[in-house]
């Protein structure tokens, strides 16, 4: 005798999973409310800190909110592209490993499962758009007394529309290997487009920028609220609405156009990425996203190991080799250094930009000392070499210091050609650069030579846990900041025409570099 089998819908199965998971939920409602309270408290704290930074920086300067908002199209363009690029390895529709194993592979309607996840992503995007849009237009209206309701609504709706479009586009990238490849390949071109938009804003062509695409249309009302041109606002809003509607519709109708392989790949990447994020392991996170963007096939040019001229150059030659095999590290360092120089040149009278310049340059040095982190991750590997642990660490600093020096000289040359420093100062600063590079790279090396980020401290450290974890993260930048700030007076005197100023800066930077190197050499072999 046969028995008919009645299959549940996808929604019923998901509800059943949710119900059962709630039975074993470790967090109570009180726990969740406490978490929400803590998040709100920290958010307010962060917002007040940012406001304080702006207060400090803007007092006595000719800050214009309108000028700042003019950069909104560039920011939106980059954010949109970031969301689209996220679709190459994760995207708006991601299931967990257990969901894939037990729910997605069940005989359930795939469209229903995918649409549920996609709907959730759209809601998150809409909330982000509302918060962003309301924030920008509210501040704009407050600061400029342009309190028009239509502009306010249009500003909020525009950011919602651009967020929905970005998420929908990200879905198309997620479901198609071909689109993913295209996105990966044209990312440098898109960065070029962002640069063109930035040049347009910087040269006062903001009207043209607001007509350049959805990112510009979405910014138009906010810019208009601070005194810009309102004439084309409704056309731009209409265009944006059409684009968002088409994008969302096309995503919904293709909601079952994704292979199991893509969903499995994302589930596995999500699981590993979550673990990496929990342990603060940025390196693993980067590797996962890179591997998944390349769909499991990551293979650079097959560079061969060079035979070093001297035995002590083994570590150096290995570091050069890894830099050639993974040039993205060098590219990042170049971008960060360039950003640091731009911020430094623009920092006159703006202390916040000086801090940004320092952080960017430190980040460049930190990116280059990656071989030390690899060494720390494999502490027994150094036993193949005839040197102690501390010596190996210092040898790993040679290539980063040389690269930072070269980048520093390059940046200085550009700044000199731009006429931002005179000939004499240029010559003397070029002597300072190698020591400054050392003073940035060595503290980064000191920070990198420690064990990975102690996530357990956040929990086990009680109330002081998050503070201890933060201090752990700040050690490297703080060491570099102390040295740079001490040498800063000398540099300023040098730039004012006193050669002894440069000399004292060199002494401070060089002495600190030597001190950090000695500390690294004194490190005992890992157990």
């Amino acid at each position, binding site marked *: 005798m046969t028995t008919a*089998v009645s299959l549940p819908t996808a929604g019923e199965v998901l509800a059943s999973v949710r119900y059962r998971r709630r039975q074993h939920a470790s967090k109570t409602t009180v726990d969740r409310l406490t978490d929400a309270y803590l998040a709100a408290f920290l958010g307010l704290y962060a917002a007040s800190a940012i406001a304080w930074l702006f207060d400090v920086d803007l007092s006595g300067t000719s800050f214009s909110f309108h000028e700042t908002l003019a950069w909104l199209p560039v920011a939106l363009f980059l954010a949109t592209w970031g969301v689209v690029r996220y679709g190459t390895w994760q995207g708006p529709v991601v299931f967990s490993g257990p969901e894939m194993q037990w729910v997605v592979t069940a*005989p359930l309607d795939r469209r229903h499962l995918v649409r549920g996840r996609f709907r959730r992503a759209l809601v998150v995007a809409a909330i982000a758009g509302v918060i962003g849009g309301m924030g920008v237009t509210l501040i704009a209206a407050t600061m400029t007394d342009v309190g028009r309701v239509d502009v306010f609504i249009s500003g909020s709706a525009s950011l919602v529309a651009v967020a929905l479009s970005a998420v929908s586009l990200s879905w198309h990238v997620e479901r198609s290997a071909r689109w993913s490849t295209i996105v990966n390949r044209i990312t440098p071109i898109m960065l070029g487009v962002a640069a063109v938009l930035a040049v347009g804003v910087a040269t006062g062509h903001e009207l043209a920028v607001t007509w350049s695409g959805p990112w510009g249309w979405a910014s138009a009302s906010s810019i208009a609220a601070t005194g810009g041109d309102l004439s084309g606002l409704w056309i731009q809003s209409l265009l944006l609405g059409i684009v968002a509607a088409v994008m969302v519709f096309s995503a919904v109708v293709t909601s079952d156009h994704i292979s199991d392989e893509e969903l499995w790949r994302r589930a596995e990447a999500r699981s590993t990425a979550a673990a990496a994020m929990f342990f603060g392991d940025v390196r693993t996170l980067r590797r996962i996203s890179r591997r998944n963007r390349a769909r499991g*096939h990551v*293979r650079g040019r097959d560079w061969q190991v060079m035979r070093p001229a001297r035995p002590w150059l083994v570590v150096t030659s290995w570091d050069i080799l890894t830099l050639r095999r993974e040039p993205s590290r060098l590219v990042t360092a170049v971008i960060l250094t360039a950003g640091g120089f731009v911020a430094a040149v623009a920092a006159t009278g703006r202390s916040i930009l000086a801090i940004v310049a320092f952080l960017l340059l430190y980040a460049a040095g930190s990116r280059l000392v990656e071989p030390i982190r690899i060494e720390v991750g494999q502490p027994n590997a150094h036993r193949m070499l005839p040197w102690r642990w501390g010596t190996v660490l210092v040898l790993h600093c040679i290539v980063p210091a040389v690269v930072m020096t070269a980048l520093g000289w390059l940046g200085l040359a550009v700044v000199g050609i731009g006429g931002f420093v005179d000939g004499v100062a240029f010559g003397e600063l070029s002597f300072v650069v190698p020591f400054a590079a050392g003073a940035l790279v060595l503290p980064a090396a000191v920070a990198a030579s420690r064990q990975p980020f102690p996530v357990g401290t956040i929990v086990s450290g009680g109330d002081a846990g998050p503070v201890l974890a933060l201090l752990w993260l700040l050690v490297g930048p703080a060491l570099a900041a102390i040295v740079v700030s001490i040498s800063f007076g000398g540099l300023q005197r040098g730039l004012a025409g006193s050669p002894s100023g440069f000399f004292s800066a060199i002494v401070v930077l060089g002495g600190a570099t030597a001190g950090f190197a000695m500390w690294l050499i004194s490190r005992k072999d890992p157990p």
Partner: protein
Amino acid sequence: MLGWMRHESEPDLLFDVMAKSDPVPSTFVDVDGLGRDYGDNTALESLDLKVAIGEGVAFVGQNGSGKTTALSMIAGRLDPTRGTVRIAGKDIHDRQVAISVRSMISFVPDAPALYPDLTVLDHLQIVGFAHGVENVDDRSAELLTRLGLETRSHLLPRELSRGMRQKTQLACALLRPSRVLMLDEPVSGLDQGSRRELFAVLSEAKVGGAAVLLSTHQIDFVDGLVDTVVVLDQGSVAKIGTYGEVMKDGVVRELGLL
């Protein structure tokens, strides 16, 4: 009776693909020229295989030989670069028929994929519900007893050993009404007693009307269990035949599988 056994007399439980009027094809799993590349690397060159209901196939080989790739493509978890996989005459990678074909395959992966906040019994209940299994409670109890999990049914995955987690997955796979049971490295993490129990369960599955496909690098496990052994070496089929034929050939010893 275990979950999959009822299909022997009730073929209409296999939904639209295996409707009552459809005869069970003699070749249930038909693999034709299946291959997969990762860029310049070939993970699997070309695999041809035909498996009937009640038959067993083992993929053996060293690490990186292509066992998991082959199994994953047959299960529809991985898209092939070339070739086709047909289950009951339907292309497993055809999106239009994917749901009905998927319902016929139970795949037990090497790495356990369990909800961290659901118990062993919860997993069985969900799988049973999602696949429309009747008398889930009775069937679950039967499976848990059979696999030695009856006293651990209320435990969460983190409270289980690796072998127990593997058994939980196996229980879920056996509960759902499938025709093809696929297991990736099912022996790893299991003690001798559990290995014997797994052997018995898989043998019963074959007799009960399921095609069993598994991958392992422990070739001795499949002796007497499978009808065909596919020896893979660096993505190529080095030898294909019965257990006896494969063992007579020197390739198994050359590859260090003994």
